[in-house]
């Protein structure tokens, strides 16, 4: 199963102006039953973040804040147990966690002499029990647990996913006897910006020389790819090697800005058998077993002359969902998930 660009667009289309709540996610799941919750959530989250980036400013004008706060006060005055804040944020189309932060800040401003520091606010959001007002504490808590795109819990989940993928990657590298330096070691050496891993001995995959690996625990849509490219990948490239990865003749570097080609496959490991490959992709699936990717690579080569960019995009999204389905949705043991991908390809 591959998530095509069209499918991706369809999902993204559904997500326009949908509140980031449990209910929305459930509806999305019903609409796209073939996609895993994790995939949908990842796409949802990113689409929503884009939306918030666009509209963030208008919720932070002092007029807006005043009116939100007033509405909150009116609401809880009527019924403190009702989900006042959550409904307010849904109504004005803003993330509940962020709305909670606005109201909390405003509340603290009113009740304390000094304006609240950021760390105090963050700490209160992490643990609403610290909020002096019980009603507000409950409202904030409700916002946070119901928000599936923002908030300390979501941040923690994202962080955890990132960490897990790094560990998975490290395991694979160790398993394949590839010598590498990890981020901590690199930092100890004084590197300023580091990818997750630098291979001490570069490997080649399908003609691409791989020098370093970075795994990204989020859906690899174009937008986030560009952001990563700008913030991180070029920096690595500047420091480690410029030629790698894009060194093939058929993929010009210029085309990368149009559609990110194998750079997305920011790393791949070349193992003993030419067929036995693991790809490490900068997307929500940090790596999967060869078989599927090998097939897509075939597709890629096959279409190389014609629609390289489209194929690459398709391919990229395809990877993700597949992985997510096994990785997160079913809760199957991971090894199991991997080996289920391997038929037809000798493992060793």
């Amino acid at each position, binding site marked *: 199963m591959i998530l095509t660009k069209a499918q991706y667009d369809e999902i993204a289309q559904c997500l326009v102006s949908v509140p980031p709540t*449990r*209910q929305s996610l459930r509806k999305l799941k019903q609409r796209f039953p073939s996609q895993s919750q994790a995939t949908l*959530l990842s796409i949802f989250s990113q689409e929503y973040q884009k939306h918030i980036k666009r509209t963030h400013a208008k919720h932070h004008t002092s007029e807006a804040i005043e009116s939100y706060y007033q509405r909150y006060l009116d609401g809880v005055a009527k019924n403190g*147990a009702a*989900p006042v804040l*959550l409904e307010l944020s849904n109504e004005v189309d803003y993330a509940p966690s962020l709305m909670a932060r606005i109201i909390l800040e405003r509340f603290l401003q009113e009740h304390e002499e000094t304006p609240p520091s950021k760390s105090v606010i963050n700490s209160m959001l992490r*643990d*609403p*029990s610290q909020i002096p007002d*019980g009603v507000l*504490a*409950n409202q904030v*808590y*409700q916002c946070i*647990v*119901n928000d599936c795109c923002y908030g*300390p*819990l979501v941040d*923690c*989940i*994202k*962080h*955890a*996913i990132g*960490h*897990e993928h790094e*560990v*998975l990657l490290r*395991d694979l590298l160790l398993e394949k006897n590839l010598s590498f330096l990890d981020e901590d070691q690199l930092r100890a*050496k*004084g*590197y*300023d*910006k580091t990818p997750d891993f630098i291979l001490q001995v570069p490997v080649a995959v399908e003609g691409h020389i791989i020098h370093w690996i970075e795994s990204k625990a989020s859906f690899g849509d174009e937008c986030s790819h560009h952001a990563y490219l700008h913030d991180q990948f*070029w*920096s690595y*490239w*500047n*420091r*480690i*090697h*410029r*030629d790698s990865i894009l*060194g093939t003749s058929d993929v010009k*570097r*210029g085309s990368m800005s149009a559609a990110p080609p194998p750079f997305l496959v920011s790393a791949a490991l070349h193992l003993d058998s030419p067929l036995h490959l693991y790809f490490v992709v900068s997307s929500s699936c940090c790596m999967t077993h060869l078989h599927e990717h090998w097939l897509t690579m075939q597709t890629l080569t096959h279409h190389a002359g014609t629609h390289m960019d489209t194929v690459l995009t398709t391919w990229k999204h395809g990877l993700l969902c597949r992985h997510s389905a096994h*990785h*997160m949705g079913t*809760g199957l*043991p*991971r*090894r*199991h998930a991997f080996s289920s991908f391997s038929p037809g390809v000798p493992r060793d």
Partner: protein
Amino acid sequence: MAAVLESLLREEVSVAAAVRWIARSTQSSEDDPEEAAALTALQPLRKEFVPFLLNFLREQSSRVLPQGPPTPAKAPGASAALPGRPGGPPRGGRGARSQLFPPTEPPSSAAAEAPLARRGGRRRGPGPARERGGRGSGGPEEGVGGESPAWAGSRRPRGSGSPSSPSLPLSDPPNLSNLEEFPPVGSVPPGPAGTKPSRRINPTPVSEERSLSKPKTCFTSPPISCIPSSQSSALDTSPWGLGLPPGCRSLQEEREMLRKERSKQLQQSPALACPIPELGSPLPSRTGSLTAEPADPARVSSRRRLELIALVYSSCIAENLVPNLFLELFFILQLLTVRRMVAAKDDDLEPSPDSLESPLFQSVHDCVFFAVQVLEHQFQILSYLDKGTLKLLAENDRLLCFSPALQGRLRAAYEGSAAKVSLQMPPPTHAVSFQPETDNRANFSSDRAFHTFKKQRDVFYEVLREWEDHHEEPGWDFEKGLGSRIRTMMGQLSAACSHSHFVRLFQKQLLQMCQSPCPGALGEAPDVLSALGADKLGRLRRLQERLVAPQSSGGPCPPPTFPGCQGFFRDFILSASSFQFNQHLMDSLSLKIRELNGLALPQHEPGDEDGESDVDWQGERRQFAVVLLSLRLLAKFLGFVAFLPYRGPEPPPTRELQDSILALRSQVPPVLDVQTLLWQGLQARRAVLTVPWLVEFLSFADHIVPLLEYYRSIFCLLLHLHRSLVLSKESKGEMCFLNKLLLLAVLGWLFQIPTVPEDLFFLEEGQLSAFNMDTVASEHGLDSMPVVDQQLLYTCCPYIGELRKLLASWVSGSSGRSGGFVRKITPTTTTGLGAQPPQTAQGLQAQLAQAFFHNQPPSLRRTVEFVAERIGSNCVKHIKVTLVADLVRQAELLLQEQLVTPGQEGGDPTQLLEILCSQLCPQGAQALTQGREFCRKKSPEAVRALLPEETPAAVLSSAENIAVGLATEKACAWLSANITALIRREVKAAVSRTLRAQGPEPAARGERRGCSRACEHHAPLPSHLISEIKDVLSLAAGPRDPEEGVSSEHLELLLGQLGQTLRCRQFLCPPAEQHLAKCSVELASLLVADQIPVLGPPVQHRLEKGQARRLLYMLLSLWKEDFQVPVPLQLLLSPRNVGLLAATRPREWDLLLFLLRELVERGLMGRMAIEACLGSLREAQWPGDFSEELATLFNLFLAESHMPQPQLRACELVQPNRGTVLAQS
């Protein structure tokens, strides 16, 4: 002057004597007294002879070379001020080929000037400027050799109707050669240099704007004034840019031209020998058929005269009396490939062989004959050219026709030549990798500097990438595209004082990207002619016939350029326009140049004739080439930056101004003491390394520089060197032929740079004699080693390739082919064996070692030095990870003790560091012993592995010992100087690390990390669990739909998975675990408050007590056994969570009480802590009844505290009842 030539022609004076006379001021004993007398009379004119001869030849040939690129040359004089016309644009230049060194009087009429207009490109004033060259040295030629009217006439204004030269056809038909009126298409090199004409191809539309444009430069290069402003956008106008030839215009225009061309071809009469000149319209001399007039040796007129002049000319070339050897060769090849005579009036003249009255070249046959004569004399040089050129020469049908002998020799040379010069593709460019030694935080003064540099690196590469992507796009402008970004970046750098770091990066990147020459190094369009080779020229010819624009040719004297990637660095420097950056860059470049220039390149021991030496030689040549090319690149940029502030459009207009500038500039110390370096280079016989980069450096000098005393002396040295490099002299210890050729080529090129005054070359002897090469000890130096090969020669001097292009363009126009080659000659070079006298008292051991190496193949020495260098360095690294690491560990232990010891706590970190260092640093002394041991152990292994197995045992052991000694020396020198500082640094880092670790995080946590050995890491991922638990929490917090809920089985499964995850730990990171802990506490609170919506038919249920209790048990055990982070259990009693109970009806307290008891019993929470929490709970505001219940609970819990353990157990059994009671109370 002409008198000399006349007397030569009359054979009154032998050529040898004449050349001796020209070359040396004093007479030698070999001279015939009669000859000497004849020449002595002409003494004052001696040094004017060569310019005269060259001018004469150019002038004579102007009529016969209507096609082909011009032979630029540089006239002496005119460097002085031009008081007559300050600032005013010169009107028209001077003849170059027709008059290399132009006449005294300005041309008087436009018509007369026309033939010359295009050629006299140098912006040089008329008349007065030439005074020195023309008359300055003792009167005009009329005074001495007044009987040569032809000569005199030739120096008079054309078309003035001079009666003394009625027979000269110079003024009538050759309007053809007037390139002002018949400008060639595309025959121009890039940039305004491009206005250099090529007469090979003429059909071009007459362009008005060209006539209005600035005077055409014909010589070597554009006015240097435009350099600083040159930008990629200004391709067409920038002399330094890589612009397209102006001839290449829009497609539309090309088509139009093609159309005209075709119509002209149709009109053309078949009689090509004497085309009818059409005034004002282009004359199609190169047509589709491209036929050249056949040359016939039998029809050569005045053979003897031509032979004599060829001999004199060749002798001058051989004695290096001409400024640029390759320029003359180019000229000769032009003569060889003359296509047809322009308006030759063959029948007009009956040449009198001894007179100069008649034109020298009366027909194509004369030209070819002369050229072949000269080529015969220059065979040696030709034989060293690249294989492609040799082949083209050997296959030249005219050459075969005129001198089968020479052709045979050339063929043989071609057969024997291995000098294939390939067009290398530049290797992919790499970024300079992050260098932990120099780029890490410790090398920066502050965090800010470090982070600024971090950003700069990214900006720099971003800029570079953008340049790579865009610089070839039309309309892209470096300054517009990148300028402001570069300046912003520079501004940030200046603030943070990290220039030296950035400059290091810049320089490294420069070397990495630009070291290898790019194809089309002169900035030309891809060169089809050289790419095709001679074989495919037939095809090319057919192709060419369809083109109007010819192959572009840069000419043999292109201006200094920044081809390929170098352009980026130049533009970067210009755009950055940062004083600090430039200064740092100059410092850095100077340092690197000194370093490379002083590099001890391996000395060649001749006589080592086994196969190994070949391999060695290749390596050494390669190394030399790398060093030389790097040096040239660095010196070029150094020159560029150093002279950048002084670069102006013109030499200063007045003498006074010039003098004041000179006075000022002479105060400025040179950026790099090149004079000393040159002296040292010459003395150490390393000119072949030093001179080429020096030339690159000087090529960027501004107009004033050559006038400065300091640089003038350098030019004198170079001139003298040039004169001394006589190619035909080959003796022991002499410089190798190709080395000489390289030096001659680069020096010749330098002398053609416009900023170098023309008269410099023809200096007074007095100035030259200051330098005496012979006094230099003939010790073995690089010069006498064959370090230069053709590849390097052509890489350094790509303009030599113009010879090949010229020949190839001849072939592509004529189908002559010669047969196969027969003989084979392998050129060999011999180098003298010179013993190296032991220098000063260096110690017998060192001398012995030198002697040892001297008798061994050079590879042995390299191996030993390499091993010593590596082992020494490894030794230091080894010490770092063993001894120093041990010491650091000790320091950490000591520090722990210090911190644990009461009273000592909270000591000042610097004080702590001092204590530790005073304890540990003395142990650093061990480093030397350990280092020695390491070197003793490792060096022999490495030497043994690297030397051939057959190496005799004694040699091997000596080599090993020397390697051990050198390595130990190196390692110990470093260690003894740095070990203390190193230990200090590492200990300091360790201390700060330890102190940081002492912070909030308990140190004990680390130990329990990691799961059991048997674990296969199959547990669910933490992220998955957090997200699942979050779902439950959000369900409980609501709002929820009526049908939403969870089953108790699901909750149990969830907690089970949580247990697995916590036990596996493989994927667990502290933040995730903390959140899991917090979520689990929240979950417990919900259970206690019975707030979890449970699924189940028919209506929404609450969890059964038993189920809830089971789940709480699971949680308790997780908290107790599995969590490794502190679990925020106090949250259970936070007002918010207890408040959940308030919402339930009927309120049930038993689960809470149960939980609290369990917490206490399992030691998860102290009784005191719980009491404190309960106490603070009472302070919160609650509904009245809830407060009461809370108080009851509190009392109940307090009452239990006094009960012994067993009773608690019993108590638990009756819990349900008590709960009910509580609820009802």
